[in-house]
């Protein structure tokens, strides 16, 4: 079974992971590993083998800073 790593700012409980699988059904086919990464500030990062879904505050802030930098 392929692995998927979910990064979060605190260790997720089973209920929380189940909720997530409910929202993203494709996660069912993967073995879920949870890792803590405080630098995300808040939110989640879901990392597949070659695709990343960034739902964190850090990613969003990065995005804004990049846009602003490009435009000015």
């Amino acid at each position, binding site marked *: 079974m392929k692995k998927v790593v979910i990064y979060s700012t605190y260790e997720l409980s089973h209920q929380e992971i189940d909720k997530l699988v409910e929202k993203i059904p494709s996660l069912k086919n993967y073995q879920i590993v949870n890792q803590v990464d405080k630098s995300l500030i808040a939110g989640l990062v879901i990392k597949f083998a*070659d*695709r*990343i*879904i*960034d739902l964190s505050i850090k*990613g*969003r802030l990065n*995005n804004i800073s990049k*846009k602003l930098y490009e*435009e000015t």
Partner: protein
Amino acid sequence: MKKLDHLIEKAKSTIQEIGTAPIIKDYGQVLEVKDGVAIISGLSNVGYGEVVEFQNQVKGYVIDIDEERNGTIILGDYLGIKGGDLVFRLGYTLSVPVSKEMIGRVVNSLGHPVDGLENFTQTTNYPVEKIAPGVIKRKSVDVPLQTGIKVIDALVPIGRGQRELIIGDRGIGKTTLAVDTIINQKGQNVICIYCAIGQRNSKIASVIETIRENGAMNHTIVVSASASEPVSLQYLAPYTATAIGEYFMDQGKDVLIVYDDLTKHAWAYRQLSLILRRPAGREAYPGDVFYLHSRLLERACRLDEKYGGGSITALPIVETLEGDISTYIPTNVISITDGQIFLETDLFNSGIRPAVNIGLSVSRVGGAAQTKAMKKVAGKLKLDLAQYREMAAFSQFESELDEQTRQFLNRGARLTQILVQDKNQPLSLAHQVAIIYAAANGYLDKIEVTKVKESEERILSYLNQKGRRWLERVNKKNVIEEEDEVELKKLINEAL
């Protein structure tokens, strides 16, 4: 305060624009970093020529795809990239911002200004690599591109949309020739692009200074990838310059691009290819080094009026060693271009500047674009010079020569002298025609060879004072009619 408010407003609108949609990206990881090249794993869906972004926001350009790993060239500083860094796919092929505001500016291979002035505000993106226009869209070259250099306009004329190679050893005026051509485009409605590849920064600075001093910066763009920049940027520079040129050509404008020089471009590509472990061929260049330059120079063209009627004229420069034009890169580029201007060290040292070797220089399509006025005077010049060269070789051993031969040699020596021209002093068509007319018709035969230059100056200054109307007329009509010829004869006689 106003500026701050403006920035805050902008930030607010940007944040709103971005919204809360999740960010989904394909990613890979850096396996190896080498000089200007990174090997990455993952990114199985990436396409050739696509842009990727490293974790530290430096961009990369995919030029090698394998089953499990991809080779990318790093567009920028590669010292900050570490093994294991994430690489994201951006999903578009490499393009550069182009804009009207670029005129008069210095940009790098990525189209960003490097002259310390403000950024461009209104830009569109143009692809760096583009397939050249096909036969349907093209038209044969028929409008002249005046270089302002007598020997070139008379003997190896260049037309708009032509590709003419400038080839010769180091330090004998290749760049000068190209820069003079740029200077002469003042008021000719031609946008010039000077693309420096692998040059010393000091040389680029002095070229820009020369262009500026001669008031030619208002129609010129400089694309600079100096020797100190990563080879990846040196490799890209000519393609970027062409992309900028295509932007103007698509608006129906005429563009002149100088690639200075393609030898160093081939070196940059050789370095990248060797690092990517592509099989090395002759002189360690990869197998596709011909295609490297042919796809670049094919993009120079003259479009049919139906497709806007713009043009790109290319003046690639290639440096030889010891005047040897039979090495790999020179032969390649000679066969791609529509002719070459061959500069020679011996001529340069004997004071014939521009040191053009007339016998080896040709223009395969420019003849159709030569103005009628020039054609009229240059035909005779070409013939006389050819005969002079032949006879001069023979007569070195003969002490006694018949009258006719002596006269030929006499004329030839003077013709050679009038083709000498100081740098950064391009002449208008009418000026050139007048001087060549005078020499080819024997007005200078009685003057000593060393004083030909003086007489030339005398004729030019006399024309500038008394022959204004004649100059204007010929420059406007591009033809010499009978009455013009009569008047010219009179003017020359008066001047001498």
